[in-house]
């Protein structure tokens, strides 16, 4: 094969470059999808139900503009709100508004039903302000909806439609706000703003994180491989494989999501590994056998490395493909993109790098590498090996205890799908969300649609009962339903204390005539969000002041319990519910991808080591790392979300390499006739060093995620570093101790095939990687 690589090197180089560049040219055509509801499959019940409700009552995504001041009821503030509200009313992208100037007061005054605007005149003195305050506090459609009870904030809530793009509508909203300056501090919030910011931040992140990761990797490569010619080989593989997988996004008609940002980072961190092995090994062989012809050196290089690289690559791909079992759509896409990228990196490492080496090898082979032993690093490795040899039992026991203790944190792991939490606490959008949730009932909603004769008293009372019971729930900021409007209308018909006051009329005719009365004095559009024109569908809108999944699930359960015997068809949907389903998907996806990845890796390890026991032992560090990381998440309060849900598959994919490398090396040492103690010391001293430095380079790649604008992505960065660290300890501490203690038979079997025989005899099948890092060891 080596001869063919040399023969067709230009073709190989040409194909690889052309493929990478072609796909890279597609990247600018990528579009961003900030809509988290598209993360869940369209067949999911909550999405189907939400679509049904939105078809009838329009999209329920709200923008909320907050006006905050020590006292919001000043003439200046109210004039500012009025002017902004009036301009909003002219925006084609805004379908309905609830503002201090749209809310009505329904009153029964001297035999008259009066449906007047809440603010007919802007108060000019303190007595008028007091009067207005009283009216606001007694108006259920105003208190904590358009004015906070403490009169320090007011809000304009607008639902937006699709007549213009969301981006354009938000730009117009911002420009209206900018055109009406005032004393009040204005904050903008709501899901459309969150989506808008996510879209901008995803692009910003891509522009910042990817270059940072590449620079870090370039430095790591320079540090480990020495000369730039050697550095550029694996680095080119990183660039080409990343370009290929990212170019697939527009080619497959997919869109960039927050979590697809992880694809280039995964590739930057992982795709260079195989190249590093090859280049480093080439440097070592060149140093040893400098006088041999290049073809012979290259042949030795590929025959010694192809197998372990292939196994490493396959296990990594298998781990990452675990994401395919996720029901979260972008998670599956990340699985496909990252697996494609790793496959490309693997193939390029096996063909493209040898082809490049065959071109440049002679120029570089002697330009590098001097074996310089580093006393500190070697001392540490020696002490570690000594400890493992002396106390394998204690190490196993303490690892077990530590894992059990840390894994107990799993019980505390929270699921978080609230997009508001993507932003840091000091972000204005997060601040707006906090004020909306605290003072205005929240911007995230659950919708209940009731289909039937809404004027029937049984159905209206059912709606009323549901409304009142939901209003009393913790985490519910407000409930809006047509039954509340009917109750308010009854106040305009009956006097306080009179039978019928603040009640649902007992007959269909009574309710129908009440609506007719309102239509004469009010505006039918006042309630268009709550009931359709022919009174066949009603909409109950539940605002969540605490949009946590726990609250969402409790509300959902309550609705189900209360509507079991409902005399009408009930549809439950809404953005918050989609989020709850999303959370469910995360858990199911986490479990399924974990099982898939673990089982696949176990099978692969069993094949590699030709023993089921080998597969099981090889999987121990991964299983322990999974427990430790999830336990850490529980203790540290980092929640499982769209991004961190990808963790286990990626951890398995990346972390398994270390175990394979150690066990392969140990097998080589044992087969050389060394004792278990000596084989352990030799393996730790050689491959242990490489594994540590390899892990550091992967961690360095992922550390770029700490520069993300999204809290979730930053947390993913921390967690992946912890998990790689955990896999590292598992591979160079726990696995050696297990092998030392239990001496499983498979580890003494011959693993390598005939092609690698010559190299095995030469004793350093895996030693290869250690060579790559001797420079680092020297400089460390």
């Amino acid at each position, binding site marked *: 094969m080596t001869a063919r690589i040399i023969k067709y090197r230009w073709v190989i180089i040409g194909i690889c470059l052309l493929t990478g560049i072609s796909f890279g040219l597609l990247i600018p055509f990528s579009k961003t999808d900030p809509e988290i509801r598209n993360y869940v499959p369209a067949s999911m019940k909550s999405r189907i139900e939400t679509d049904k409700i939105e078809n009838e009552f329009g999209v329920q995504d709200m923008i909320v503009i907050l006006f905050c001041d020590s006292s919001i009821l000043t003439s200046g503030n109210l004039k500012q709100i009025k002017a902004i509200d009036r301009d909003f009313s002219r925006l084609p992208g805004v379908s309905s508004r609830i503002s201090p100037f749209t809310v009505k007061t329904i009153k029964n005054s001297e035999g008259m039903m009066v449906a007047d605007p809440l603010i007919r005149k802007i108060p000019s003195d303190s007595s008028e302000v007091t009067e207005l305050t009283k009216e606001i506090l007694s108006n259920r459609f105003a208190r904590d909806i358009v004015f906070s009870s403490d009169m320090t904030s007011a809000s304009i809530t607008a639902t937006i439609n699709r007549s213009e793009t969301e981006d354009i509508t938000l730009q117009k909203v911002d420009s209206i706000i900018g055109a009406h300056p005032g004393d009040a501090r204005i904050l903008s919030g709501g899901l459309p703003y969150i989506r808008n910011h996510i879209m901008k931040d995803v692009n910003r992140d891509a522009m910042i994180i990817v270059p940072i990761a590449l620079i870090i990797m370039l430095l790591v490569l320079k540090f480990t491989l020495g000369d730039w010619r050697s550095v550029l080989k694996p680095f080119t593989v990183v660039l080409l494989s990343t370009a290929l997988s990212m170019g697939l996004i527009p080619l497959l008609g997919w869109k960039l999501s927050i979590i697809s940002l992880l694809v280039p980072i995964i590739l930057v961190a992982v795709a260079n590994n195989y190249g590093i092995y090859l280049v480093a090994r080439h440097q070592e062989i060149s140093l040893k056998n400098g006088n041999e012809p290049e073809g012979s050196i290259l042949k030795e290089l590929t025959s010694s490395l192809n197998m372990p690289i292939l196994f490493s690559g396959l296990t990594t791909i298998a781990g990452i493909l675990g994401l395919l079992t996720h029901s979260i759509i972008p998670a599956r896409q990340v699985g496909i993109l990252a697996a494609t990228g790793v496959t490309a990196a693997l193939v390029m490492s096996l063909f493209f790098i040898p082809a490049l080496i065959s071109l440049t090898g002679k120029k570089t082979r002697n330009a590098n590498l001097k074996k310089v032993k580093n006393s500190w690093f070697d001392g540490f490795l020696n002490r570690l090996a000594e400890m493992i040899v002396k106390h394998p039992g204690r190490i196993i026991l303490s690892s077990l205890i530590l894992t059990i203790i840390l894994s107990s944190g799993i019980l505390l792991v929270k699921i978080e799908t609230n997009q508001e939490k993507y932003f840091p606490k000091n972000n204005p959008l997060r601040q707006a969300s906090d004020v909306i949730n605290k003072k205005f009932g929240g911007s995230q909603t659950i919708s209940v649609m009731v289909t039937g004769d809404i004027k029937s008293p049984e159905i209206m009372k059912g709606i009323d009962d549901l409304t009142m019971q939901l209003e009393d729930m913790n985490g519910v900021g407000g409930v809006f339903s047509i039954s509340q409007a009917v109750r308010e209308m009854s106040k305009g018909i009956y006097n306080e204390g009179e039978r019928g006051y603040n009640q649902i009329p007992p007959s269909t005719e009574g309710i*129908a005539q009440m609506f007719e009365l309102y239509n004469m004095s009010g505006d039918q559009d006042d309630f268009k969000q709550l009931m359709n024109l022919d009174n066949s569908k009603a909409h109950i809108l539940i605002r969540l002041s605490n949009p946590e999944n726990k609250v969402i699930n409790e509300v959902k359960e309550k609705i189900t319990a209360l509507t079991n015997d409902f005399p009408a068809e009930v549809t439950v949907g809404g953005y918050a519910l989609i989020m709850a389903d999303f959370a469910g998907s995360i858990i199911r996806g986490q479990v399924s991808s974990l099982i898939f990845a673990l089982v696949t890796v176990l099978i692969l390890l069993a094949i590699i080591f030709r023993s089921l026991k080998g597969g099981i032992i090889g999987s121990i560090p991964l299983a322990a790392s999974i427990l430790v990381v999830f336990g850490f998440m529980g203790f540290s309060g980092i929640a499982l979300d769209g991004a961190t849900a990808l963790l286990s598959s990626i951890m398995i994919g990346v972390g398994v390499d270390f175990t394979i490398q150690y066990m392969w090396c140990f097998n080589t040492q044992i087969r050389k006739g060394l004792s278990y103690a000596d084989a352990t010391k030799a393996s730790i001293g050689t491959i242990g060093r490489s594994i540590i430095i390899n892990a550091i380079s992967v961690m360095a790649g992922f550390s770029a995620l700490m520069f993300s604008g999204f809290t979730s992505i930053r947390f993913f960065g921390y967690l992946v570093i912890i998990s790689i660290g955990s896999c590292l300890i598992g591979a160079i501490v726990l696995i050696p101790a297990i092998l030392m203690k239990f001496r499983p038979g498979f580890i003494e079997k011959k693993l390598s095939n005939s092609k690698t025989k010559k190299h095995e005899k030469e004793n350093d099948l895996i030693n290869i990687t250690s060579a790559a890092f001797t420079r680092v060891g020297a400089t460390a």
Partner: protein
Amino acid sequence: MILSILLVPLLHVSAQQPDAGQIMSKSRDLSLIGSMSATINLSILEKSGATRNRTIAMTTKSYPDGLEKRFIKFIEPADVRGTAMLVVDNKNVMDEMWIYLPALKKTRRIVSSEKGKSFMSSEFSNADMSSPALSDFVNKHTATSGSNNQWIIESIPVNEDKADEYGYSRKVTYISKDKYQILKMEFYNIDNELFKTIEIKSIFPLQDGKYMIKNMIASNLITNRKSEILFSNINEQVKVDDSFFSLQNLER
């Protein structure tokens, strides 16, 4: 000489076109009926295709001072049958409206100063259902007025309060030159955007050139909702006593 050349076209126009206000006044006079009764079918058609129908019986009486009284009784749908309304349309003061709800056995007065407010939740406003006072508007011909056998007259509310009351900043009325009958009306909002049209589909001719609109469609161009009013069983000879328009009769 130059001046006379410049003035000739203007003189020509003014000689050709009667005063816009006078045209509006004449058209209004021809549509004013002393008293009449009719059955009205009101259909509201949503953009989604959903419809809502109301059938009402209406009796009106106009008084020389511009006062107009209307008595409305709901016939369909069944759940609002018997609901009755009494409207006293004062030209210069706030309208007075009472509604009787038979299921609740209650009569309630409704206060509304807004003539622009929707008539029974339709695209028609209360003002569209009556004849607005001419003094509330400044009328003038549009550039194309007089062509196609139509007077096209623009009516602008005399002040902002009136604009708020009527719910539009400008109205363009198309009137047939020969019969002075209204053919179409276009309504513009505060941003001078056309937001509503009313098309007269058919009329009911009365004596002395007078007429009554029989079928008209209002289209809201913003909500894409349409409302249609169809008059039937028109009786312009009906003699109605003043006592008919009383609260006692409302609850009967």
